[in-house]
């Protein structure tokens, strides 16, 4: 069971990286967990497209408002932070 979750989370991380990499026009292998979206050249529109891609890929609803990006709810400060948030959303959905 624990192994399945590990495996599932690896899949989530790979899919989130692929979505972000597509917006940044780079290969997923070029991303690190510390990468920040702005540093990857992803602007506000790119961010909204990333979130749409995540919602479509995982069948979740991401609580994000472009006017209040600092608000707790969905941490977008780095690739790793986004992956962690998506893992939480997916887990909550499965529960």
């Amino acid at each position: 069971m624990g192994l399945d979750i590990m495996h599932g989370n690896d899949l989530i991380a790979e899919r989130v990286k692929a979505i972000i990499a597509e917006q940044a026009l780079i290969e997923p292998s070029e991303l690190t967990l510390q990468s920040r979206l702005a540093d990857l050249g992803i602007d506000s529109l790119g961010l909204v497209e990333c979130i749409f891609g995540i919602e479509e890929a995982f069948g979740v609803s991401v609580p994000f408002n472009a006017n209040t990006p600092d608000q707790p709810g969905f941490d977008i400060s780095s690739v790793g932070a986004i992956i962690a948030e998506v893992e939480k959303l997916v887990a909550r959905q499965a529960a």
Partner: protein
Amino acid sequence: MGRMRRVVITGAGTLNPLGADVATTWAAMRAGRCAIGPLTCRDVDRLSVQIGAEIAGFVPEDHFAKTRLSLLDRFSQIALVAARQAMAQSGLHMTDALALRAGVVLGTAGGGNTTVDDNYRTVYAEGKNRVHPFVVPRLMHNAATSHVSMEFGLKGPSFTTSTACASSNHAMGQAMQLVRWGAADVMVTGGSEAMLGFGGIKAWEGLRVMARDTCRPFCANRSGMVQGEGGAVFVFEEMEHALARNAPILAEVAGFGMSADAADIVMPDLDGPVRAMRAALADAGLGPDAVDYVNAHGTGTAANDRIEAQALHSVLGGRAAQVPVSSTKSMHGHLIGGTSAVEMLACLLALQEGVIAPTVNYTQPDPEIGLDVVPNAARKADISVAMSNAFAFGGLNAVLVLRRWAGA
């Protein structure tokens, strides 16, 4: 070469979330009433944004015969109801000669969005293979303009402007220039919008810029824009023409300025709005010190409000913190293509009655704004010159400058 022709407003009408005529709208603006509430459209449970500023209690059948209604999308109905009020106030009698010198320019961003949404539902969701025969004449963006021209027999220059959130200011600016340059003596102008349906809101949700609670322009805890529906229509008239027939003169349309950011399809830019405001003031022959009131674009998004505040500081200089700047979108919502027409009513309230409509829902100053946003309560003030801002998605900016009428 003679003196430049001057343009005055001789009629105003409206149908918007704050009221079904100018007097009711003004009363709501004086009272600082917020018309934002729960949306009532079909499938609202499938929307993540469930608030908006709807026109309450509008019964189309009270205004139009059944046979005619089949040709009128909601945005055209709104424009016609408003145009009737404006034409009645102006007292214009349309002769054969004047009809050729009178036209219509109206703004809209979504046009017949309700018709589009309803008929997509018919063919895609309900699987029908037939739609109503008048879908095209209902949905076209110029439908409202054409219906107003037909109802009043206006045969001069007529067209529709569509520049998203600046549509109505672009329309009124074009109308002003047509009268000023002699292409027409009378122009019926303004704009309308009706996008508060499922498809309209669903599309806006995607951008993640909509508030879930209410609209708080310039407020530290703002969380985005709230959509509204409605519009306003005005009669613009060449000054000598209006004076000759003893028309009621509500204000002078003194200047108009336009610019394009040429930068980003949604993010506002500082330089474009600054240039549009300066162009409007220069066109009016006024310096920034003359501005007594600004009706802000003030959408309540983080991006707009910060950039607009910076732009106002650039244009108004040291006076920026003293000049009252309000966003009436906090009361009537963002009417998108119709919004600057309704905001023109706030400018007329300031110029004619000396009352500045407030920015309501305001709870917390934002240190990045640094403007007198006339929080929550209307204010008496002596206003001679008002400026009305409209900065559209796509970076297309349109600013009008109005002057209180104190005689020729």
